């Protein structure tokens, strides 16, 4: 498949435009406890992407889990500029979406959240250059 020309219609959870390099997480993550919102680092020692930084990346994650602090972790990392440029989710995750919505509203940001199918998620690798537009279309960026 020629990924450079492919575009995929995703479901918009929070609309917005973003461009960046994908970071694919191989497991779900709690953004409170498993994540440091002061610098955007994954600190869950059990997580396959332990110690990776999410700043500026298009974060591809099936969903969040665990404690209720996920929206707060998301809002804080977005507030201080260490957060992802966008989220691509495998599930309709309300916690990630609400954290993003609140940050977008309080700090006048435009961080999109979209949902894609598992088969689409599997086509994305860390380092892929992606674009998400305001209609919820995801493109592999030809650069």
């Amino acid at each position, binding site marked *: 498949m020629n990924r450079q020309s492919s575009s995929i219609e995703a479901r918009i959870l929070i609309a917005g435009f973003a461009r960046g390099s994908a970071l694919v997480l191989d497991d779900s993550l709690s953004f409170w406890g498993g994540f440091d919102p002061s610098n955007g680092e994954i600190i869950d020692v059990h997580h396959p992407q332990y110690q990776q930084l999410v700043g500026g990346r298009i974060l591809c994650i099936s969903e969040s889990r*665990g404690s209720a602090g996920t929206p707060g972790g998301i809002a804080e990392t977005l507030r201080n500029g260490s957060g992802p440029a966008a989220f691509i989710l495998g599930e309709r995750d309300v916690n990630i979406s609400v*954290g993003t919505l609140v940050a977008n509203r309080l700090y006048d940001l435009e961080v999109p959240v979209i949902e894609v199918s598992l088969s689409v998620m599997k086509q994305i690798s860390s380092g892929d250059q992606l674009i998400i537009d305001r209609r919820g279309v995801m493109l592999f960026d030809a650069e």
Partner: protein
Amino acid sequence: MQLNALDQDRLDGKLGKAMQFAMETIVAAAHIDQADALIDISFAHIDACFYNGRAHLDFVNYMLEHGATLAVPSWTNNGLVSLNDLSVRDPLASREMHEARELMRAYVRLGCNPVWTCAPYQLPDRPGLGAHIVGSESNAVSFYNSVIGARTNKYGDYLDVCAAITGRVPFSKLHRDEARAAELLYDVSAIPKQIRANDLFYHLLGHIIGRRSAHLVPAIVGLAADCNEDDLKAISAAGSSSGSVPLFHAIGITPEAATLEIALQGRQPLRCIELTVNDLCQARNELGQNTDQALAGIALGTPHFSYTEFEHLVELLAGRSIRPELVFYLTTSRHVLQQVQLQGWAESLQQAGIRIITDTCTYFSPVVCGLQGKIMTNSAKWAYYAPGMLPVDPLIGSLQECVESAVSGEVVLDQWVVE
């Protein structure tokens, strides 16, 4: 989704800007959940009072400045700090702790009942079977759904507050009958009875269920009929740390699971998993290895210690003292502490060397003073989360193992579930 006239007025800003922001968030959540209706709630447990950076203060200050009030009784979860004892955490993090206190006071101003506990279900006047509520703290969500039979999804920060302000939530997922059916069975009957009678068993079982259940609602077959709310609390907390288990059924024990058939709502389970002692050993190893490192301390009370857990601790300690070189922290709620003080237990435990803390918990930073190195805990949740946030090597043990280790100054383990 069709909104009623009042909800539409809320959304249009006719009831003020705070209500509008809250309603926009609820409607967005309904869209994401694909819910076609909103319903009333009767209670909320608020997690957004737990400081997690400046964004939390900005959010509640926006709500207060724009005239927000609460539509339902709303109780507070733990805060980052103890309002009763400001010396608990590392003083170097003073700005963070100052803002954490400011945040807690803001939620009191908003009208919350300041119970400051992650185990609000241990307090009187808890919601009943079938009540639609808002739970936020993951162990409490699981306990409310599973053990009480109240109905809540896992509402995270901000959505919990928006629901308390509007009194409304999307009619989705665990608020609906069909989402509450058991889908996956765990059979623990093959595990020897004396192991199933140990409090550690429930923590390890919760850890396993969290790891293996993915999105399915688990049912557990073979639990002792006399297992109590502390045991079920352990499953709730461990299952929502290693995974997402907002609802489980314990057949013959929990209120929506009088029989397996009822819990399954007449359907067939997708899988049946028979658990063995080996599974428990593996879970125990995942939650910390017993290295040669010297024991530095003990941490109990995650989630908050209950009255009956205090009772067991007093019995097990039997008047002995903690070795002075160890730190021993125990977290609980103000309400339970008050009950325990009436029995004289709090004073005797403190004299034995146990530091009792309210309003907060010990497994997150800033570091609780002296809590570093090898720390024993009876909590799978503590053991799961602490190493990511504190300079500790956790080791999980039963309450008895924790007490014997604290008294002798070195790790004492029973022979069961040790490789």
